[in-house]
């Protein structure tokens, strides 16, 4: 066996009846960036939670620098120099404290001094941020005011304070803009050059190839294979993740669109949206693309009655709508799959069938009384139609993987037979297998005459699925492309506020 910094040997972990990890081996070299890939539910998160002390393995051992270690808590893991930068950075940041206090949080929480010298604190925090080339973050500012990307850097800085040996990045780039992601990569390279080992979890293959030295693929609770990045190609990796090669049925669609369905005119709200106008026809999929913060989510919510509108009109199937509350939008025939599925779309502690029936309770009740058999029937129906992986219709959604949760968040609208579906970042944090299922479903809905609006910052996905693409920038629709005209480069140009006439610059995109 080689000399690894860390070895996880035949790790087993079960939750109730579910086997999350089965004889899993994972090895990390010193100073490498090691990508960990797998579809949702493959066991990546569980493995990393064991490494960071959140869970304890049922059996198997962890060796750090050749010595067996035992980590019953995240604190114990940190003492061993293992840190984790979670996807949901907000859970690890104390919003009301300053940047410096956040960086040095563990130090002064467990420190012996009763009084903390602010100036020392600031100086120390500044030094750490400089190491990360992130000196532009003001150390005295409240953490609440930082962007997501900056919060990530604060968490990385916190790990550095303690001379971390291993830092785990759990989908760090998911919420970042391209520019922010590039910056994060340079930080990761810096860490690497200083001998820190990084585990990098991501669903975006191009960036995995850009940043990693080795790639380990997991499937169904065990490690399938570890690749040298320089010797692997994307098809190989995707094949290992899915267990079979992925047929590319996303491309090529010829579908006639029907009569005008949605007409939006001069829509504005008090904060973000300015003079939005567009149409959607029956059977048409309209992509709305823009970078994070462009106003996509605001537009989706506005159409769904969740925003206070100051101007403009919305017509659905010829009828003028007054959208004061989502109730109005649903009655008019709209459905929204929101961006933050756990927070806004689902009741994660409730069962699958309770979630599925909720938007349309009248259909699943006789008089005032719930008809639980009908609920169960519908739940079984969407389970097979959307290929949701679950034990039963009674399983609480927390036990489902992200992709399967998202399928429920979409499936719950099907019983309403809405005319217009709004999808806000429906593939966020979803693995390739589930993505394909979601794309198919959107296509099916369109084929049956529904209008679909597909809000996304994943430009290549939007191009793949849409008939027409609207580009948003700063709360406005700045450009419309037909499917034939749309290319990543052109969309990205408009999405970042540029215009074609003015720009001859070459765009280096990081997406495929």
């Amino acid at each position, binding site marked *: 066996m080689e000399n690894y910094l860390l070895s996880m040997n035949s790790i087993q972990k079960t939750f109730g009846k579910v086997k999350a990890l089965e004889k899993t081996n994972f090895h990390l070299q010193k100073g490498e960036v090691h990508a960990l890939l797998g579809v949702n539910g493959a066991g990546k998160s569980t493995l990393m939670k064991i490494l960071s002390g959140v869970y304890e393995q049922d059996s198997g051992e962890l060796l750090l620098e050749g010595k067996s270690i035992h980590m019953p808590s995240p604190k114990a893991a940190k003492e061993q120099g293992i840190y984790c930068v979670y996807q949901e950075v907000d859970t690890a940041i104390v919003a009301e404290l300053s940047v410096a206090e956040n960086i040095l949080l563990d130090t002064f929480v467990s420190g012996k001094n009763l009084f903390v010298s602010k100036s020392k604190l600031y100086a120390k925090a500044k030094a750490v941020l400089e190491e990360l080339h992130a000196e532009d973050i003001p150390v005295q500012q409240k953490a609440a005011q930082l962007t997501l990307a900056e919060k990530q850097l604060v968490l990385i800085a916190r790990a550095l304070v303690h001379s971390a040996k291993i830092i785990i990045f759990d989908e760090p780039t998911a919420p970042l803009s391209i520019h922010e992601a590039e910056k994060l990569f340079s930080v990761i390279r810096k860490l690497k050059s200083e001998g820190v080992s990084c585990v990098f979890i991501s669903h975006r293959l191009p960036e995995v190839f850009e940043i990693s030295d080795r790639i380990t693929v997991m499937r169904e609770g065990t490690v399938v294979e570890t690749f040298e990045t320089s010797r692997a190609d994307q098809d190989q990796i995707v094949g290992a993740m899915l267990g079979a090669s992925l047929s590319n049925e996303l491309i090529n669609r010829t579908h006639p669109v029907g009569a005008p369905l949605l007409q939006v005119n001069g829509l504005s709200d008090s904060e973000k949206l300015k003079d939005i106008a567009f149409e959607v026809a029956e059977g048409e999929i309209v992509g709305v693309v823009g970078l994070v913060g462009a106003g996509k989510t605001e537009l989706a919510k506005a159409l769904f009655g*969740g925003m206070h509108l100051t101007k403009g009109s919305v017509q659905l199937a010829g009828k003028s709508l007054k959208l004061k509350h989502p109730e109005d939008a649903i009655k008019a025939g709209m459905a929204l799959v929101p961006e933050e599925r756990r927070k806004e779309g689902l009741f994660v*502690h409730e069962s699958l069938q309770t979630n599925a029936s909720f938007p349309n309770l009248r259909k699943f009740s006789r008089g005032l009384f719930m008809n639980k058999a009908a609920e169960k029937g519908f739940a079984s129906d969407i389970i097979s139609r959307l290929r949701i992986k679950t034990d039963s219709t009674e399983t609480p959604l927390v036990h489902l993987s992200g992709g399967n949760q998202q399928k429920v968040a979409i499936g*719950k609208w099907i019983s309403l037979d809405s005319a217009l579906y709004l999808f806000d970042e429906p593939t966020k944090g979803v693995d390739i297998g589930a993505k394909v299922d979601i794309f198919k479903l959107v296509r099916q809905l369109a084929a049956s005459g529904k209008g679909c609006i597909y809000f996304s910052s994943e430009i290549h996905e939007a191009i793949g699925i849409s008939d027409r693409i609207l580009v948003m920038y700063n709360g406005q629709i700045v450009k419309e492309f037909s499917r034939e005209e749309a290319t990543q480069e052109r969309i990205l140009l408009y999405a970042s506020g540029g215009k074609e006439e003015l720009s001859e610059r070459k765009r280096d995109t990081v997406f495929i």
Partner: protein
Amino acid sequence: MQAVEKKSSAKENAIQFLFKYGAIALLVFIVLYFSTISEAFLTYGNFTDILRSISIVTLLALGVTFTLVVNGFDLSVGSTMSLSTVVTASLMVWYEMPLWLVLVLPLLVGVAIGALNSFLIVVIGIPDLLATLGMMYIVAGLHRTYTEGYSIYNNMPLTSGGTAPGQLSEAFLWIGQGKMLGLPVPVWIMLVMVLATYVVLNHTRWGRILQMTGGNAEAATLSGVNVKKVKFAAYVISGIFASMAGILFTARVGSGQIDAGAPLMMEAVAAVFVGYSVLGAGKPNALGTFFGAAVIGILLNGLTILNLPYYAFDIIKGGVLVIALAVTYVYAKHKFART
């Protein structure tokens, strides 16, 4: 590692068991314990006594259950009950109103207080605990001001001179003191209300909407639920239950005592939280609430038989609440640590 596995799963099983059957095991233990000590304890007479004694608390607790279901809280139920008690008595003793008005007006008082609570919480945005804490004092003050600090009873002397004209009627007193089919009327009222609450919360569309609103208000909104209306309804229902408790109390005691509800608020809240851990429900539920009220009622009854001084009872009530909360939160921590 083997040892670690065994230890942690044994601990897990113990927590699971405690959460599912802990409350029931506690009840069985209490009943067995008291019946070995006193012969008077395990008799039909004492059994109906206990049920009658918990009927008022159970009504209060059902109201609290509704607010907890929508992820709110209502501390003002005790005061609302006090106000309803004196209003009920005054309507008969001071104003000689017909029975139907005597039963309806206090309920409207409850509706008004519930509406005011939800206005503060839903429209103004004050956190539920604080808003209803404030209302608790306001309503308590209101009811004392209304009676000028006196309790209301038949032929009471009035501050304006003379004696009160009216009386609590026989028909009214039957609600609190009568019997039907071998059980006291308050027990019937309680059982019907528990059953109604159970059916509404667990088997109707309204119940589903209440539960889901409490589970995730944002997701409920985006699924088309008007969360404000739902919360409004929950607080109004809580007010109505508190008023019913007040009416029942007046009929049971035969006078309009002031501060009748204040000591019962704690018991009601404790009953609901004991109910969380009945059969591992993990959330407010009607049958659990009834069960919780029964545990507390039996405990207090047994301690009375044992001659524990009444002034020590608050220790027991508080203790039961703390234990119930501890079980609930330990379980929640344990459950969410895994997800």
